[in-house]
């Protein structure tokens, strides 16, 4: 099986998996004794109010009708209505809180894996030395510290005393996009921005295609020219999309990640601000999780560094860095990747403590908020969303697995 058919098979396998997940969540919420509406009001509301809510949330329908409505809603990306008085759309709440969580999760996992691999490799290559022991103790201690405590210490030092970073929130109030909508509603950018973008985009895509052609040893005429022109036009389409947003939408808010959006927008001031707000919470989570990755990297590296092909690589006179990273780490990476997937999925569910410490408006805070309201439909929606996310992260991990280790594809 080549990589492509492996990916197709793996993606197809996800369909029954997610279907099963959805059905189980649906049944559990409805099969447990007691009725969500009753539990929500703790029997303190009038019969009419409860009946009203059941009707509005369509909980009075027969089970199979509810089930099909639920599936049909999911196909449209509709996770149902909240029990909160406004009967808000749960999807909209989740989708607007999710980019904050995603951004935090991405930066945290990058920091964790970066520190973890760097220190883990260091520890393993200097096995049993002072350096090794120091790194090991650091890994254990940093993971043992409660995350809210670490967060509060960092907050005190860097934000309250040193005033280097803001104490909480996601970005300066004026820079925030309005409401829950995905796009800025500010006036359009203009031609200057479009043309400052067009030059580098065209140049970069052209350069990339030429380098790729050279590596693949494809002759420039005529196949090479065609391919590079194709890449160039693809680059222009992507660029045109951005330009359109810049001109007519008044700014980019495509991903919902402020750091990336501000970069796409070419707004450096906003980017710096976004990073300043993001730094402390992601450092807190990243430091804590780096403990896991240090230990994991170290133990796996110690194993692979002993293998024959590492000695064989050294006997061929390869540089120590390519022996350590290209041979040992590359082969020790699969368990690290598994852990990355697990931790990342967990972070996507919302880092409740960290988000609360830094008043970060993500999924974790939304979930805490909904749980305290005993908002069962919202919780059900969040659980489904989280389940699908975990499935997707696992899919990505599996595909990366196959990419990293050719033996898995067969």
């Amino acid at each position, binding site marked *: 099986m080549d990589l492509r058919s492996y990916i197709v098979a793996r993606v197809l396998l996800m369909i029954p998996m997610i279907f099963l997940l959805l059905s189980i969540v649906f049944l559990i919420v409805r099969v447990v004794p007691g009725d969500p509406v009753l539990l929500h009001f703790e029997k303190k509301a009038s019969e009419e109010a409860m009946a009203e809510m059941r009707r509005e949330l369509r909980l009075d329908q027969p089970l199979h009708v509810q089930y099909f409505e639920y599936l049909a809603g999911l196909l449209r990306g509709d996770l149902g209505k909240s029990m909160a008085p406004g009967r808000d759309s749960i999807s909209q709440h989740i989708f607007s809180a999710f980019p904050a969580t995603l951004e935090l999760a991405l930066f945290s996992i990058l920091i964790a894996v970066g520190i973890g691999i760097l220190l883990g490799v260091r520890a393993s290559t200097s096995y049993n030395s002072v350096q090794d022991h120091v790194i090991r103790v650091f890994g254990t201690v940093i993971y043992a510290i409660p995350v809210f405590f670490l967060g509060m210490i960092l907050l005190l030092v860097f934000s309250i005393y040193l005033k280097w970073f803001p104490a909480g929130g996601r970005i300066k109030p004026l820079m925030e996009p309005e409401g829950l909508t995905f796009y800025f509603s500010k006036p359009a950018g203009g031609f200057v921005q479009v043309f400052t973008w067009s030059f580098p985009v065209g140049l970069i895509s052209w350069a990339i295609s030429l380098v790729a052609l050279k*590596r693949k*040893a494809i002759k420039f005429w005529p196949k090479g020219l065609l391919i590079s022109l194709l890449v160039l036009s693809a680059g222009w389409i992507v660029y045109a999309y951005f330009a359109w947003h810049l001109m007519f939408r008044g700014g980019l808010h495509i991903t919902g990640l402020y750091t990336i959006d501000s970069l796409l927008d070419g707004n450096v001031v906003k980017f710096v601000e976004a990073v300043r707000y993001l730094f402390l919470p992601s450092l807190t989570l990243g430091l804590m999780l780096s403990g896991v990755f240090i230990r994991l990297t170290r133990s796996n590296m110690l194993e692979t560094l002993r*293998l*024959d*092909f590492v*000695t*064989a*690589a*050294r*006997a*061929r*006179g*390869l*540089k*120590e860095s*390519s022996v350590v990273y*290209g*041979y040992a780490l*590359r*082969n020790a990476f699969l368990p690290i990747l598994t852990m990355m997937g697990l931790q990342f999925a967990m972070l996507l569910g919302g880092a409740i403590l960290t988000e609360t410490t830094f008043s970060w408006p993500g999924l974790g805070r939304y979930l805490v908020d909904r749980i305290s309201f005993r908002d069962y439909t919202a919780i059900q929606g969040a659980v489904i969303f989280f389940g699908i996310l975990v499935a997707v992260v696992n899919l990505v991990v599996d595909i990366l697995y196959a990419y*990293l*280790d*050719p*033996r898995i594809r*067969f």
Partner: protein
Amino acid sequence: MNDDVISLPLLEVDSLTVDYRTRDGDIRAVNNLSFALEKGETLGLVGESGSGKSTLGLSIIQLVPVPGVIVNGHVRIDGVDVVRLSDEEMRAIRGKNVGFVFQDPMTSLNPVKKVGAHFIELIRTHEPNVTEAEALERAQKTLNDVGILPERINDYPHQFSGGMRQRIMIALAIALNPGVVIADEPTTALDVIVQAKILDLLKNLRDTYGMALILITHDLSIVLERCDKIIVMYAGNLVEYATGTELHSHPRHPYTQGLLQSIPNIELAEQKLEAIPGSPPNLLNPPKGCRFWLRCSEAGENCETEEPPIVEVSPGHFVRCFKEADKSERNRKR
């Protein structure tokens, strides 16, 4: 190269001593061992497990595994004493001047890299000016020389059989045309038919590439007919050193004689194989005198207390044994 200069041996190992510094004490894996190797020669290094033959092989390229250290002696490759070289200088010699083939081909290639990538990396590390395409072309030529179809260069190691992987390992060892190739038990993990093919391949390559070959093995029968010179090692010591034919016809050391008697002869229908009694000594606490005396049928009194000297019994034939030392002593007196 100039022929008129005094020719240095390609590889010279001079009173090399290697210790493993363990928590329980020092283990002397190679004891004061010397030999020299010329261009195009084949040297067989024979000994049982733990005799120090692999350590000797690895110490030539300065890759003795931790906690091993070279405590004394020199290794000269093309006249350069590599024991004194820095890590970076030594790295440039490995692969370029000395090729190494390992015992287990199943685990000696990086499973996540294509065969071609192994070659590109090797060639471009030592010759940075070579492009990827040129490196691949050279790799395909070398693969062809070892009997692997050049188009399989884009396959991963797990797509090859054990014998083929060993051929790839050999191709990697000879790719930069080194002066010396060290093969550490290259056939132990393979079945008998493949074993013979690999050994013949090594011999042919030695002839076409003109390199010197060191064949490390525990199987005396393999090296007898293939090697110009043979060193028999026992518990870190050189016990006998002679040409293959000489060793076959006139083995002098009791240990070598024992090894030869334990090789089955295909022409004798009913033959009782003689095993050497006992097992090798614990090197943490080796016997005081000759390291073999406990298992030796001809051990005398002084074998127990004194270390036997190395004597040259006939030109080019060296033995470490009191029996032979006494004989030559007597001869001299007469």
